[in-house]
Each structure stands twice: as C-alpha cells, then as structure tokens.
C-alpha cells in the first residue's frame, strides 16, 4: 500500500498547480487558433504543445530542464543561436525579391515600417521599467518577424523568450485583424485607388547579384546582423542561381520544416507557469500590439510623405506601406484584400505590396543587429 501512496505522491497529478492548469488553457488557446482559425498553424501547434510539455510537473520537459528539449534549447538557441538563422536560410529560398528590386523605392517603406520596434522599446523602458536589453527584445516584436524576435531575445533577455515569441507569432497571425482598421483610418478613398505603374523588369543577373551585394553590404555595415541576413541571402542565392536545385529544395523544404518543429517546440517549452504567468507578460503582449500598430502606421505615413515628392503618374498607393511589417506574405495579402475590397476590385496591389513586405524582413534583421551592437 505504501508503494502506491509513494507512487501517487510522486506523480505529476499530485504536483499539478493552478499555474500549470492555466498554462494548459493558454496552450489550448494557441492550438485552437492554429487548428480552428488556421492562424500560423506550423508554429502555433509546436509552440502550444511545447507549452503543454513544459507544464507537466516532474517531467522536466521545459527548455530549462535537462531533457531532450532542454538540450535542443541549449544548443539550438542559447549557446549557438543556430535555429533562427537556419529558418532565415529557408525563408531566403522561399522569398522572391523581384517585387522589391523592381521598385527600389519600396526599400524605404520596409525601413519606415520598423517604427513600432523603437516606439515599443521606448515604452517598455520608460513606462514599464524593463531594462534596455529586455526593452529591445520586446520592441523587436514590432518587426513582425518571429525568428528575428527569437534570435535577439535569446541573446539579450532569454528569460523573456516565451512571452516575446508568443506575442510575435500571435500578432503575425492577427495581421488581418490589426491592419485593416489602421489602413482605413490613415488613408483616403482617393489614396486607396492609386493604381501604381508597372515595376521595372528585373534580369536574372540582377536577381543573382542582389543576395551577394546585400549580404556583403548589410553585414559590413551591421556585422551583428550577419547571422540572419547572411543566411537569408545565401538561401536566396540558392534560389536564384538556378543550378542548386537539390540544395534549394532541401533548405526550403525538409530542413526548414525540421527547424520549424524544433524551434516551435523549444520556444513553447520556455512557457513554464512561473516564467509566463507574470504581469510582465501582460505588459509584453500589450506593447507587442502597440509595436505592430505603430509599424503599420509608420509604413503608411512614410508612403504618404514620399508621395509629396512624386509626380501624379508615379505616386505610390500608401496602403502598401503597411506591408512593410515583415509578416511575409500575410501582410501583403491583407493590403491586397483591403485595397481590392475598397476599390471594387479595380486596384490590386499584391505585387507592389510584396516589395516593402520583403524589405521589412531585411529592415527588422538590421534593427536587431543594431540593438545587439548597442545594448548587447
């Protein structure tokens, strides 16, 4: 009988706390959003299940533990920062930068749409009392780029990795809800109806030179952004070179899937009750929403400023500025849907919006690099 009592005492059930149960609910919400609403399912399901594992008492399945997940976290994120750059390699393979190259002006929209990063970082630092490293990690949520958020937070404030990653991926999934009201508020009907001229045709040579030139220039200017931008551009060279079909398929397919599984699971496993259920998490989620909104507004506003200097036939549709947040390609799709609905299908700026969208990926990686250099 004593053996059974001892077994019961040592079971997870006897050690289950209210915090663990609450985290099961949080994990359940993430998994529900992924399955029922199809919000970022490839990420929210691993993150949600990782959160479940992390909250199983005595199982030691959190990222802090010594289990398999703990080891992957240690070697994949904390010690080597291996996983986020590998995601960038796959993203580089899957990203067509031609819409950006065909409209080089849209590079600037990708820069302007990083505004939210800095607004949120300042809010976290001056209003909520986070230190500089934590504030920078929270601010990067405004870049709308999950791997960049994880990369920076793992280096500057690893204890905030769970809430920052959840905020980053949740708001990326909520782009269709967050952006349209801001687009409606900040643009006039006439602006939404601007039909942009054709992009400049991009030759294969220019498309091949782009990753080489960008990788070199950006990494020389901000060396701390090289792990992200270097891998992004390497992936893009695999895509554009046309002679590395096998590497391209692996980097953009099975390898990206494996890394996504591992990254999602270990990030989810950082969400133990004691690490996640704090007032600071609430602050991070609120600031994340502000970051996203300000980034969207920054892109739109800058597009309107550029229009002041352009002739009538060269004006850009300011709505595409909203796509400068780097949630690729969700943000560009949202802009396309919004403008098309507002103009009864007459204006369809999907390709113009892809320009700032992919520029935003570069912009947020550069911002992360600058933060690392200055507060790391």
């Amino acid at each position: 009988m004593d053996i059974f009592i001892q077994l019961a005492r040592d079971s997870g059930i006897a050690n289950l706390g209210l915090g663990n149960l609450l985290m099961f609910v949080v994990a359940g919400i993430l998994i529900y959003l992924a399955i029922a609403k199809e919000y970022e399912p490839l990420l929210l399901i691993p993150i949600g299940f990782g959160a479940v594992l992390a909250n199983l008492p005595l199982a030691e399945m959190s990222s802090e533990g010594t289990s398999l997940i703990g080891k992957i976290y240690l070697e994949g994120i904390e010690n080597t920062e291996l996983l986020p750059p590998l995601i960038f390699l796959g993203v580089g393979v899957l990203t067509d930068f031609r819409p950006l190259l065909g409209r080089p002006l849209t590079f600037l929209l990708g820069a302007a749409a990083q505004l939210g990063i800095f607004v949120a970082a300042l809010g976290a630092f001056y209003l909520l009392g986070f230190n500089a490293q934590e504030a920078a990690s929270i601010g990067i949520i405004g870049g709308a780029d999950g791997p960049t958020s994880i990369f920076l937070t793992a280096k500057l404030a690893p204890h905030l990795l769970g809430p920052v990653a959840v905020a980053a991926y949740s708001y990326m999934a909520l782009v269709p809800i967050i952006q349209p009201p801001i687009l409606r508020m900040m643009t006039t009907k006439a602006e939404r109806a601007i039909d942009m001229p054709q992009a400049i045709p991009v030759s294969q040579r220019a498309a091949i030179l782009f990753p080489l030139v960008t990788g070199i220039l950006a990494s020389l200017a901000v060396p701390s952004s090289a792990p992200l931008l270097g891998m992004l551009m390497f992936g893009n060279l695999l895509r554009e070179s046309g002679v590395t079909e096998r590497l391209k398929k692996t980097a953009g397919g099975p390898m990206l899937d494996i890394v996504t599984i591992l990254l999602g699971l270990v990030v989810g496993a950082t969400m133990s009750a004691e690490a996640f259920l704090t007032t600071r998490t609430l602050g991070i989620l609120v600031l994340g929403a502000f970051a996203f909104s300000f980034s969207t507004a920054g892109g739109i506003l800058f597009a309107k400023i550029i229009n002041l200097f352009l002739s009538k036939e060269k004006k850009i549709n300011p709505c595409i500025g909203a796509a400068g947040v780097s949630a690729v390609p969700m943000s560009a799709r949202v802009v396309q849907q919004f403008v098309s609905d507002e103009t009864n299908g007459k204006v369809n700026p999907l390709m113009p919006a892809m320009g700032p969208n992919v520029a935003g990926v570069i912009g947020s990686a550069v911002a992360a690099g600058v933060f690392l250099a200055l507060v790391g």
Partner: protein
Amino acid sequence: MNPPDLLVVCLSAFVAVFFLLGFLAVVMRLLIAVFPEKLAGIDSATIAAVTAAAAYVFPGTKVTKVEEIK
C-alpha cells in the same frame, strides 16, 4: 563607459535601418540599370496573325511595328 541611453540607441537604430535600406535601394537601382532585362521580341507567328487581322479589317494596311505593353 556607461551604456548609451535607450532613446539614443533607438534613434540611432532607426537612422541606421533607413540609411542602409536607402543605400541598398540606390545600389539595386544601379544594378538593374547596369544589367537590364532583355525583353523577348514578338514572335513571327504573332506578327503574321496581327498583320493578317489588320489586312482583313483594313485592306491594304501595312503593319510596321507590333509592340507588347505589359
């Protein structure tokens, strides 16, 4: 040395992002100018079809140029 104020860090980072992406925009524009896309010409079957159609509607018409506007 004291760490820089976060306001200064944020302003510097924003300027750095703008400057670098602006610079990349200029470089890419130059790249595209140096290596322009060579547009494929209109194939002879298309020219023959357009010529035949124009001659059918306006007998005696001579088609001198066929241009595709994308």
